[in-house]
């Protein structure tokens, strides 16, 4: 049986206690997107600034459990300053790490699995610490919340959705 230490790795607790890129950005020029976890009521707000195909700035606000907050913090650290394409690749890789279990739970992420590339945990850097979450199926939605929200934000920017639309 999976122990708590599989879920709450030290790096996760560190990101939870000292979240990176916490705050807000002025909208516009930034793009604001909200995500909800209907199961527990957690909310995450992602502020995104994309210039010339690069995520130049990103901030996270909202509230949630240690898993959703640390995952959001790690996501912000790994995406900020990176090209949008790299960010999308990271989203796919991260969700692939979580997706096998989401499929078996009847989650709504099944479609993404098809296009997910084979990922080795080492490609994900410290994000691999969240791998233990898959042993606690109800918590997978916590870990993927900020990533789904980021994906939605990038899609909206690509589609030219203006803030407030």
């Amino acid at each position, binding site marked *: 049986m999976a122990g708590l230490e599989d879920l*709450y790795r030290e790096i996760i607790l560190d990101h939870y206690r000292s979240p990176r890129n916490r705050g807000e950005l002025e909208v516009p020029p930034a793009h604001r997107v909200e995500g909800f976890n209907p199961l527990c009521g957690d909310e995450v707000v992602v502020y995104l600034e994309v210039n010339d195909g690069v995520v130049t700035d990103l901030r996270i606000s909202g509230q949630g*459990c240690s898993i959703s*907050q640390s995952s959001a913090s790690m996501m912000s650290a790994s995406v900020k300053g990176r090209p949008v394409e790299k960010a999308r690749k990271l989203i796919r890789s991260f969700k692939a790490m979580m997706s096998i279990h989401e499929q078996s739970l009847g989650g709504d992420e099944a479609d993404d699995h098809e296009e997910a590339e084979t990922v080795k945990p080492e490609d994900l850097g410290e994000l691999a610490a969240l791998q233990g979450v898959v042993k606690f199926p109800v918590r997978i939605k916590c870990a993927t919340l900020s990533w789904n929200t980021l994906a939605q934000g990038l899609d909206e920017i690509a589609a030219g959705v203006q803030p407030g639309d």
Partner: protein
Amino acid sequence: MTSTVEAGSLDIATLRRQFPLLGQKSHGRRLVYLDSAASSQHPRAVLEAMDHYYETTHANVHRGVYAIAEEATRQFEAARQATGRFIKAPHPGTEIVFTKNATEALNLVAHSYGRHLLPEGKAILLTELEHHANLVPWLMLAAERGTELRYIPIGDDYRLELSDLDRLIDGVGLVGVSCMSNVLGTINDLGPIVAAAHSKGAVVVADGSQIVPHRRVDVRALGVDFLAFTGHKMLGPTGIGVLWGREELLDRMPPFLGGGEMIRDVRLDGFVPNDLPWKFEAGTPPIAEAVGLHAAIGFLEAVGMERITAHEVELTSRAIELLTERHGDDLRIFGPPADPTGRGGVLSFAFRDIHPHDLAQVLDAEGVCVRAGHHCAKPLMRRLGVTATARASFYLYNGEDDIAALSDALEVAAAFFG
């Protein structure tokens, strides 16, 4: 609801032995079940009654003329009678409608009464502490008919604030109110609300999901017009809920779901609905579940509702005392102070700044089952200024050892998250 609280105490050890699940271990520890407000566990008597029914009696009800079909029908209708007597329904045979759960019972009222008998232009009055089950059906109705929705607010004492009731009730045709909050444990005094509603000709729909399993409910004394509750929170199985309604109202209401059982005659150009209560029971009903619910009611009556209430009142008061004493400011309880008649055995709390989800996860590793989340009451969560709480809830099989286990597990969580 009676306020009689006797000093009768329950023999918890003997009681627990009758609940097979409670003898299990969880993560190698004694399973400490503190989530009966979500769903209660089952005594062997309930499980055996359902097994016995399936092994000896099962056939569809109200159809066959053969012996087991007649016996199945007899047992199903006997469950209806027992359920009616349990809440002192004046006419159990016609006023008790079996549904899938309390949610379906409330939807039945919203669809049938709300769409057809609630006068056009009349508002609906709800409260800020409703479960989504007594909120969303009315929101759906309002969206469809443009009905005005109003809300009785809760005060800082976690109780309904009735000072503005006279103004709120004016122009209202239906009031939806919970007998007891599944988050705060607050037991609402329905007296003034029922009186105000009836003085305006409005009907009162009460959500009794949290009260019926724990207190003696007498629908005549309660004065409401409809009462919804569910089997699985009162030691019974899932899949069966109950709607009690005044005969004269149910009689005027059109059917909710259509199908077999609910008709007297069907032609290609129309149908004649069946009599009460079958008019509201389309399709094959939850027969074994009704048998199980009957056994659950028998179990509760054998223990004694007054003794169960007394035990829970004492346990809730001890829990608040012990937890507050040991954890001090680390623990914030959302709900009124201990009060024999005004507070039930539901404790929602925040512990330090640990998110309820994380708290429940650590508690689980200690064998302690509590609920974490918004408890299907998001508007109330917003009112409390939180997104979620942790919640421990008590029933007849809980004892002080469960509170001690919860308290110890909280300390483990405190150490874990530093």
